[in-house]
């Protein structure tokens, strides 16, 4: 049973990295298409739209963060595996779910929001500050999920 526990712990890390990363990939992709369109019209806006494109990229990093904390928690990185029973393994999996799922969904919608903000920059480059704020609103929820995932993972006794 010990190995099954480890498996679920690892699955938790995988869920965090997988879904949050996929969300960011979708989001950055969506924003990137809009950004490319703006740059064809006005190459000078490259720096501004690049920043907006990168905004949905953070979910993937949050996923990586939780994944890494999980891996070091189950001792997969140091080389000496912790003995994890099935219960603990499932708990770790549950702890990783928030950032995984919220990361996926918020990453995608933040990307859509970024694409719309890139539209603002295309028409009114001086409103960059405001344009940046809309995608940052979406990110709040990824941060909340990250917080719960980190707190949960680091407080599960192993």
């Amino acid at each position: 049973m010990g190995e099954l526990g480890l498996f679920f712990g690892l699955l938790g890390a995988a869920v965090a990295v997988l879904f949050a990363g996929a969300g960011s990939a979708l989001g950055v992709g969506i924003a990137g298409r809009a950004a490319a369109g703006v740059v064809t019209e006005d190459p000078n806006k490259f720096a501004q739209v690049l920043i907006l494109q990168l905004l949905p990229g953070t979910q993937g990093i949050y996923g990586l963060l939780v994944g890494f904390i999980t891996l070091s928690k189950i001792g997969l990185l140091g080389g000496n595996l912790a003995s994890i029973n099935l219960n603990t393994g499932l708990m770790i999996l549950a702890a990783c779910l928030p950032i995984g799922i919220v990361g996926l969904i918020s990453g995608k919608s933040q990307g859509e929001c970024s694409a719309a903000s890139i539209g603002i920059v295309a028409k009114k480059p001086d409103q960059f500050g405001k344009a940046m704020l809309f995608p940052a609103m979406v990110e709040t929820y990824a941060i909340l999920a990250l917080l719960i995932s980190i707190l949960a993972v680091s407080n599960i006794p192993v």
Partner: protein
Amino acid sequence: MAVVEMQKISISAHRSNRKAILETLQKLEVIQVVEADLDETGLRHKNTADARATFEKNADLADQALAILDKYVPEKQGMLSGLAGKELIDDASFDKVVESQQDCMAVARKIVRNEKEISECSGNILKNENQKESLVPWMNLDVPMSFTGTDKTAAFIGSVQGVCDEAQVYALIKEKTEGIEELSVTVLSSESDMTNIFVLCLKEAREKVESALRSLGFAKPPQAVLGVPKKVAEDLDRDTEKQKTEIERLKKGIEEYAGSREDLRVVSDYYRTRAEKYRLLGTIPQTRKAFFIEGWVPAESAEAVAKLLTEKYGAVVDYEEKKEGETEPTLLRNNKFSRNYEPVLASYGLPQHGKVDPTTIMSFFYMFFFGMMLSDAGYGLLMVIGCGIALLKFPRMAQGMRKMLTMFFWCGVSTVFWGIMFGGFFGDVIDVVAKTFFGYTGDKIVKPLWFDPLTSPMRLLIWCMLFGIIHLFFGLGIKGYQYLKDGDIVGFVSDIIAWYAFLIGLILMLLPTDLFANIAQMQFNFPPFVAPLAKGLAIGGMVVILLMSGRANKNWGLRIALGAYDIYGVTGWLSDALSYSRLLALGLATGVIASVINTMAAMVGEGKGIIGLIIFFIIFIIGSVLNFAINLLGAYVHTNRLQYVEFFGKFYDGGGEPFEPFETKTKYIEFNKEA
């Protein structure tokens, strides 16, 4: 922290002084001219559109010439030369260039003309190449392409479909033209699916041969070249050479003018400035003898401006009252540190007149929160050094750039501070290197001065909320200050004091509870008088809010309902405070990812000695740059968000128009004001 007071003035003066006064005002850069409404006044505008267009065209021409010069004679420029700022120029050398403006424009015109000729030549070369390309299949022909035969013979030059040799073509034609013996076929060349041939026959047989050829899919060459292909090709080559030397000559001609670059820049800015002057001139009302300007001037310089214009040019300057529905433009003035944060405020919206300018308070919180989010002494050091060097090396960089770099310089200082507090220096690189490569086994070398957020995240979370609440209370305080400034004591008590009491009461009630003790692992034991005090504060505050919040309404039912709705706003405070948890999350993200990078680098480099150390540093540098960049972006975006949404949400609504004085509009040069 202040919005500069503005005074509206009106200037009327004799037209003979118009040029001098406008130029003085343009140099002073203190007045934002208000466009006058001319209905029923009998005054008129001068039509300056033509003059302005001419100046703008000249400025464009000079710009074009400069762009061409940059293309052919690139200036040696460092990577950071964009930061260097505009060139400084004193009045004397400016005037000298302006005197020779006609020569400068002639130079510009020549440069542009040369460029145009160069592109024509390049076009010709391309055309020649294309033509030569199409001649290649006919190179073996030694009669002109237009050759149709002699007195006795008829010739056909063209291509038939399919690849075949002379004998085959000969046989195919022979088959359809029985009885004709005199026939000569030469294959000139063959391409993938056609053969180019030259056929000669007697004139009598011409029609028969032609119809035979047609059945083979014979077609004449598509382009109409007349001469002998070889000769034509030689001519084309010769022409190409000629064009090339011509291009060289033209290029040299452009290069000769490289020395005029400076003058062209000055002239371009001169025309730009004059265009701006004529734009203004077109908006001010005038009569045959006089003209009038109305505009906003910072109150403190109003007197000086009035004195100067009155004494020197005999103008009449009056102080005007603000009209109904008119708003003063906003100009901010802050101390040396805080003014670097003005662009952050401006991108949300400038304060209106009579409102508080929150820049000073915001600047300190901005620096504080930014540092907490990035929270790595190594990254902070990079920012401090990078921005510091740029600021020292380019003392005259553009205003906006200087402000931004100074802002990031101070944010870097704060990042170093928080990095030391939390024990982060490029993550945990010193410990990792010591352990992996130098066999160090003792305690952690880099210890946090305060505590390590990764081992006690709850503790930091509580601190983040505390910082957040302080930030928010400051926001509420500014709103209170605004009420006091407007003399609204009732508003101050019922909207500010009541909320302070309500919130502080609630917090004091929450702190000693088991719920909080569980979350924070902290036990608060207040002296016994605190509990009733907290209850009193909370209830007192709540009652005042309930009764007073809707005080604008006479209907008591509605008033109470609005008050109740306002109390519900306490959930907004809760979510605002929770929002500061991003300080923790982003701070952790920087540290943990940095240590992921270090661990990965150590795994690869471990046990390989010196080479391992080198590999380690390569991975470390690439990873750190990425992590630095993404977290810098994150810290910037989310610090802005905390200011804009949580902080400004409590009191600020922007809506001011920026002060845009009538000024010298330059692109390349800056006037040396001391000279």
